[in-house]
């Protein structure tokens, strides 16, 4: 990895970050997130002594849902808009490779999503502290897991947008999120089915990312200990998936006529 590579990726990431954080729709989503977080206070107050549990459970779920919305909304149009509007002519006519562009877009959007999540996390931690729960350090681990899931989803939407329009990319992404969180259920459901169905579902199981691995919200709300080895495994799982998806995105993007 040479300095030109790093410099190009950084420059494109910085530009992508600026573009995305100045998008008014992002602030619209974050405003909804804020209203939702405050609403969890009310829900906690009517939960008969389970205030903190409700706030933690719904708060972390809220951070996840709003992060997914931001990621899919911005990610599915990120590369497509460059291609459609031909802004990439400015970039690729310079000493920049297709790989630099894809990686720059990835890290730029990841930075925007991370900042958005950090904002929501601050609100969440404040609410938990306000309700007498102290500093919820375990929640930070859950949010870290969610961030890695978002990174994977960004890579996925970039991959989809190398060959499809934003609406189709969004549909694909939503489908993968839904199936990705249901893979274990799916495997159990077909345990007694025929060989063909089992092979098919096994294929899907190994092909699609198992997003349930990133969901430790229940463990966190019940203060369950999480082993360090599991944390490393999940991070490694996300990194491998991201590398594969971005490599395929770069390959497809290089084949595409601009």
């Amino acid at each position: 990895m040479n300095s030109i590579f790093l410099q190009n990726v950084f420059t494109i990431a910085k530009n992508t970050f600026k573009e995305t954080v100045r998008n008014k729709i992002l602030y619209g989503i974050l405003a909804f997130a804020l209203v939702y977080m405050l609403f969890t206070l009310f829900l906690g107050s009517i939960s008969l002594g389970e205030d903190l549990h409700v706030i933690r459970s719904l708060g972390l779920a809220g951070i996840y849902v709003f992060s997914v919305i931001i990621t899919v909304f911005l990610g599915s149009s990120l590369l497509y808009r460059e291609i459609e509007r031909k802004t990439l002519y400015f970039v690729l006519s310079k000493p920049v490779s297709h790989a630099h562009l894809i990686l720059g877009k990835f890290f730029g959007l990841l930075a925007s999503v991370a900042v958005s999540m950090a904002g929501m996390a601050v609100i969440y931690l404040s609410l938990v502290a306000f309700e007498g729960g102290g500093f919820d350090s375990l929640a930070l681990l859950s949010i870290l897991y969610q961030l890695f899931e978002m990174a994977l989803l960004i890579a996925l939407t970039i991959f989809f947008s190398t060959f499809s329009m934003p609406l189709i990319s969004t549909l694909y992404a939503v489908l993968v999120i839904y199936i990705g969180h249901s893979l274990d259920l799916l495997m159990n459901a077909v345990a007694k089915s025929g060989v063909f169905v089992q092979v098919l579902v096994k294929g899907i199981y190994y092909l699609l990312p198992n997003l349930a691995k990133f969901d430790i919200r229940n463990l966190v709300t019940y203060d369950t200990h999480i082993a360090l080895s599991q944390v490393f495994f999940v991070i490694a799982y996300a990194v491998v998936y991201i590398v594969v998806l971005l490599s395929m995105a770069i390959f497809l993007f290089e084949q595409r006529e601009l």
Partner: protein
Amino acid sequence: MIEIRNLSKVFGEHTVVDGISLTIKKGTVFGFLGPNGAGKTTTIKMLVGLDKPSSGTVRIGGKDPTEYHTRESIGFMPEMPSFYDHLTGYEFLAFCGDLFHAKDKSRNHYLNILKRVGMFEAKDEMIKNYSKGMKQRIAFAQAIVNDPDHLFLDEPLDGLDPIGRRELKRIIKSLSEEGKTIFFNSHILFDTEELCDEIGILNRGSIIYSGPIKDFTKGRQLEEQFVASIEKLS
């Protein structure tokens, strides 16, 4: 020097550029003319490495433009440019400039370019609020941000008012005096005649003339001779 040898581009069964060859010497201002759909933009995209040729070769200063390092010495202004709407003119220019290496990336350098193209006053405005002429100027600014040896301009004078056109032509002339090789597509033949040392005329993907303007016009107006040549072939 720009060397193009048997360059072709085929989309499906449609040949858009059909085996063209050109040699453009260093310091030449070369006008690439042709009717709409002749293949001018496809050609210029291959010259700056945005598209790969189906066959043939392009050498810019002896190097292949599809190798991204070659593009350190290339400047390109696309036709009807779109921009990142949420950036200011200065931010956009700095972004483009930062993609070059071993070049001047100081704020002063960027500000001087903005002054040169008449965009200094509007540097902190969002590009989405720019007029078409201002967008043309900022697109031109990014094309010269790396002080390129080879400058490729796709319809650079489109959308500019007479004063804007005069200003841009003045800059193109001064760049030519600095020894830059300038290749531009245009359908504004009056300006082409004023700026170019040589022209190439492309019709349905093939070169029908390349060389000095005077040898082509033979005492007539460029536009008159151009229309006559195209009509003769159709």
